[in-house]
């Protein structure tokens, strides 16, 4: 090897290092914590999930829990988003609660980023967005992180080739990466893989705080059969029916005679590891999960831009709808905007909380301060979100 070759190779190495540095900057930025507004005067405290599973302390799974405690005995609810960090409407719903809600009876827990690690990465080769932005009335810009469906492999690696997880679900072959999926590993393990420990933390939170109703927010592709479905554990079916009925009555009172497109489904007996099944079976809580319609979750959407994420306008899916190929999740030119999707989550969770006290008066959880559905849709998040200092 001559000097010329060595110089060339050193040059290649230097270029590789520069590229690694530049790419590394982007990836490192994604690992910085998201700024969430926490100046709501009704907020009692911000807890950590590691209070419920100490093994999470100092890990990328130690997410924040916003506690609203009225001090008056009553019902207890846990509303969370970010089980899948790219299912943005559920995150926006939780953020709307954190910024606006106040509680006069009972206790409310809100967790915007349930699988915190998943907010620090996007899936490779899927052209995903890392964040979306909202310009507020005062000119300031709120940035909301979008992550991915699975925990970041930097935090949990390698994926085992075989795992019989705590729910009885076998993760093997094409499913091995699901060990990083929060919604496959409930009820979790105190000392296991990171995501299993996060699941265990949520389970312990539900047990320790005597959570009566649990709401896990998701988004689904147009192809998914259960778009706009509330999926409820068998002990939560009455609650779910009452909530959907009340939501529709509310809509009609406000002049929307069509009401909401909400439907109710029973949690599958073999939905092992999913929150509505595993937390319903293993805790006292009435476990529910709701899916809003987001074309970005599907396989036929256009290039993922901020506009697609926020407006949900997808000509491809309109065409597929027109062809009559969708059993659920039909899209029109109006799209499926983030305000509508988050508004559905807000109405669904709000009415589940309302129905709790209706069905069990001693479990009344009284909340106020949330924007109305019409407010949210009319003003957009630009008019609802608060500036973060």
């Amino acid at each position: 090897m001559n000097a010329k070759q060595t110089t060339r190779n050193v040059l290649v190495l230097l270029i590789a290092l520069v590229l690694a540095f530049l790419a590394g900057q982007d990836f490192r930025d994604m690992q910085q914590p998201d700024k969430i507004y926490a100046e709501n005067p009704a907020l009692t405290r911000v807890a950590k999930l590691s209070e419920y599973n100490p093994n999470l302390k100092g890990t990328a799974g130690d997410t924040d829990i916003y506690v609203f405690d009225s001090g008056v005995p009553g019902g207890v609810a846990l509303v969370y988003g970010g089980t899948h960090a790219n299912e943005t409407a559920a995150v926006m719903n939780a953020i709307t609660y954190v910024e606006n809600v106040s509680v006069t009876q009972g206790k409310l827990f809100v967790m915007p980023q349930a699988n915190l690690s998943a907010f620090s990465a996007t899936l490779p080769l899927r052209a995903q967005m890392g964040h979306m932005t909202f310009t507020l009335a005062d000119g300031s810009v709120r940035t909301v992180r979008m992550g991915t469906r699975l925990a970041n492999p930097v935090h949990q690696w390698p994926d085992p080739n075989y795992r019989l997880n705590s729910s009885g679900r076998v993760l093997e072959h094409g499913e091995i990466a699901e060990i990083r999926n929060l919604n496959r590993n409930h009820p979790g393990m105190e000392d296991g893989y990171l995501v299993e420990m996060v699941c265990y933390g949520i389970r312990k939170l539900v047990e320790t705080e005597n959570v009566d109703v649990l709401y896990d927010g998701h988004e689904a592709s147009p192809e998914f059969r259960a778009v706009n479905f509330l999926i409820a554990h068998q002990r939560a079916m009455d609650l779910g029916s009452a909530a959907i009925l009340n939501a529709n009555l509310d809509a009609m009172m406000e002049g929307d005679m069509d009401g909401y497109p909400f439907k109710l489904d029973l949690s599958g007996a073999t939905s092992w590891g999913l929150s509505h099944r595993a937390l319903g079976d293993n805790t006292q809580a009435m476990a529910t999960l709701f899916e809003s319609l987001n074309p970005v979750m599907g396989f036929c959407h256009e290039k993922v831009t901020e506009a697609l994420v926020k407006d949900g306008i997808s000509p491809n899916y309109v065409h597929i709808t027109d062809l009559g190929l969708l059993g659920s999740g039909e899209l029109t030119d109006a799209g499926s905007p983030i305000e509508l999707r988050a508004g559905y989550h807000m109405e669904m969770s709000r009415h589940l909380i309302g129905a709790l006290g209706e069905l069990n008066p001693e479990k009344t959880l009284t909340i106020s301060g949330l924007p109305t559905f019409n407010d949210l849709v009319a003003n957009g998040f630009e008019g609802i979100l608060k500036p973060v200092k």
Partner: protein
Amino acid sequence: MINVLHILYLVIAGLLALVALVNIIRAKSLEKAINHAILFVPLLLRALLIK
């Protein structure tokens, strides 16, 4: 146990990054150097817990 495996894999990624680095320096042709460089970048980023 799971933590030990995690650390072991990171060490392996680091060692492989080092092998790729040596291979870049010793490459006989530009193509080979670039080949090893393409392997080197993700291995380095994983070993440093960045990606």
